[in-house]
């Protein structure tokens, strides 16, 4: 897992393969989770990984709605998705998700999950995001608001079995 306080890497400059805008309303969390999980599935992740990636995005959105926008329901959140692959025409090796908002700037160094041994309601979101994603980078957007870059590699256990190409008798 990467150092979550870093301000690099730069956000991807290529056109996202998927980009959605939602209003900062909890009612849209469910549909967003379904989109994220379905996209991750198409990029080669197994069901467990798809659920975890959707959970990480859900937690990030919850934090923006609750803390970034103070539960205001008329604000925007943008979610962009790229496959991780090199070269670009290769099979996807993972997923990169960038979540952006227009909320107040927060020092990325100050975004820390709470001590997991401290059992209390709340404060689990950042811990969960860091736990399930390979790369977690919080940045301040120059134009205002925050950017969260999430990446996760497909592992060998995620790989789907090779389709059976034998001709049935």
């Amino acid at each position: 897992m990467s150092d979550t306080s870093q301000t690099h890497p730069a956000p991807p400059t290529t056109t996202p393969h998927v980009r959605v805008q939602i209003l900062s309303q909890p009612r849209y969390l469910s549909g967003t989770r379904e989109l994220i999980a379905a996209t991750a599935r198409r990029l080669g992740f197994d069901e467990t990984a798809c659920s975890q990636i959707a959970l990480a995005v859900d937690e990030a959105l919850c934090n923006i709605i609750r803390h970034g926008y103070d539960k205001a329901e008329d604000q925007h959140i943008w979610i962009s998705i790229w496959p991780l692959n090199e070269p670009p025409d290769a099979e996807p090796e993972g997923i990169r998700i960038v979540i952006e908002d227009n909320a107040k700037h927060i020092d990325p160094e100050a975004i820390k999950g709470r001590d997991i041994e401290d059992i209390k309601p709340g404060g689990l979101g950042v811990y969960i995001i860091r736990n399930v994603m390979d790369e977690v980078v919080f940045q301040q957007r120059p134009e205002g608001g925050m950017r969260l870059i999430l990446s996760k590699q497909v592992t060998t256990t995620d790989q789907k079995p090779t389709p059976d190409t034998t001709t049935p008798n």
Partner: protein
Amino acid sequence: MEIAKNNQDGCFTLSPSGDVDLSVARSLQMEIRAAMETKPVRMIVDLEKVPYMDSSGVATLVEAMQIARKQNTTLVLCCMQDKVRSIFEIARLDRIFTIVPTTEDAAGA
């Protein structure tokens, strides 16, 4: 979200249906608080019909656990689906809560 309730012989069972995320966690929190006010000997949260839970839902159950400890109510979670169990494991709360496979187990846990 629908939350079925059954209060019998000092055992209060809450059975929510549907995803428990930020949009509905408050409803579950209110129902749990109201149930806890009856000071049941045992509180069972049956999660059989909950396919998904995020940290908002988990926080609600952590609060329930804290209330239960203060008033000596036995809190038991049962029938947890794999995706829901996953978040408890990630947050290492599976070792803090009493989690059992069935409602029958919950009645005797």
